[in-house]
């Protein structure tokens, strides 16, 4: 085990310790989340959709559940329960789509679990969470048909997207739907900035669960992320200074 491995383990251990400590403190000193306009707009758009009997569509992206792309899909799955809850009273409840079989299965399970928790199992349909197509561009090719047929007025893109993400957001806009879009891919975030009504920048996609009203640990993790980010920035600054002064690192 090298020095880098030890440092990584130490960083993870610190992360977990801070997360647990902050979660414990959350009851006494709850985290106040700064206002993110994207989530404020989303809340209003969902309220309008529920009142108008229109559909909310949550896309969990075109990535897979195995590997480095899974983080943003897991964040989307976490947000799924909260969105399903607030859209339950609508005549046209939430529809979820993805470009991967495993994510589709997980989203069906999460949706079924949420409906069961809310004593609304009778309203659950397996086809409300579906895999649209197994490849990124075939996924966006099938998207307009679904948005039109389901009369979607709010589209959330929370998951991994590559270049096809811009097309997915654009198709929502063409449908005159409100589009909130967040992903873990930085180039796609730039595309979302141009094509979505409410783009999520940087790690904001991972904050979706906390902003939509989730558990104390989710709120606590945002605090811990902020703290660790400051630590990393300071370390990068020190490293840059030392390197500039001629000290080898």
């Amino acid at each position, binding site marked *: 085990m090298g020095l880098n491995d030890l440092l990584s383990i130490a960083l993870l251990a610190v992360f977990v310790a801070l*997360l647990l400590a902050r979660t414990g403190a959350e009851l006494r000193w709850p985290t106040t989340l700064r206002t993110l306009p994207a989530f404020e707009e989303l809340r209003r758009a969902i309220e309008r959709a529920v009142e108008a009997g229109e559909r909310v569509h949550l896309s969990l992206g075109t990535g897979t559940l195995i590997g480095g792309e899974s983080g943003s899909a897991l964040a989307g799955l976490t947000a799924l329960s909260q969105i399903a809850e607030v859209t339950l009273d609508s005549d046209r409840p939430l529809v979820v789509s993805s470009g991967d079989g495993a994510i*589709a299965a997980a989203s069906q399970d999460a949706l079924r679990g949420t409906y069961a928790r809310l004593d609304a199992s009778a309203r659950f349909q397996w086809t409300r969470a579906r895999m649209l197509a197994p490849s990124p561009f075939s996924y966006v090719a099938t998207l307009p048909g679904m948005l039109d047929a389901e009369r979607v007025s709010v589209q959330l893109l929370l998951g991994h997207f590559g270049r096809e993400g811009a097309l997915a957001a654009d198709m929502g806009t063409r449908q005159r739907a409100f589009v909130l879009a967040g992903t873990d891919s930085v180039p796609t975030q730039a595309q979302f900035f141009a094509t979505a009504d409410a783009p999520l920048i940087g790690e904001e996609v991972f904050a979706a669960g906390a902003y939509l009203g989730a558990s104390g640990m989710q709120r606590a993790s945002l605090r811990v992320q902020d703290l660790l980010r400051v630590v990393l920035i300071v370390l990068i600054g020190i490293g840059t200074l030392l390197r500039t002064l001629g000290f080898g690192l």
Partner: protein
Amino acid sequence: MRGGLRIVWAAVAMIFGLIVLQGYFLDLEPLRAARTMVLEWAVVLAAAALLLGVVNLAAVHLSKIGAQEKGWAYSTLLLGALLVTLVIGLWFGEESQLALALFSYVQQPVEASLAALLAVSLTIGGVRLLSRRRDLRSTIFVVTALVVLLGTGPWLVGSNGELHRLLGDARAWLSQVWAAGAARGLLLGVALGATATGLRVLLGADRPYGS
């Protein structure tokens, strides 16, 4: 009973997550073998899930055809294409000439056309951005995109001129200094966010696998 099952699923997710996570740090043969085995299981399960996804997709479109919903004709086309592709793949093999022809002459051109549409979508998106969100960030975004576009490709006239050279230098400065720095900052946030999400799943706080 249901509460007990929830604990079992959470425990399974945590145990298997930890087995995979330790493989990144500890270079011990039994642990490496365990990690490889778990990942192989995951790949098999993902393939099975893909099959379930296709069944789910077929069920969605069959119900659309049954109810004669809007766009049912497209659903018929989709199911027909699915069936034909499946039969060709199973009968002739996925690397047969026929299967490869389907890929080369149908799927690839469609995907390439969609990729080409991306340029149009982004251009329209850039124009719409200025009418939708008239703020400093959007203006900087659009101006930067214009400078990068003009500084990257050749022009119809004046490609050897001073203005083109200046824009080329501006493009290099923007992309290598500002964009690269900002992208690293964003990546740092994404990495921390992904780590936090993974840890919440490992600690059982987030249970995206239902109940």
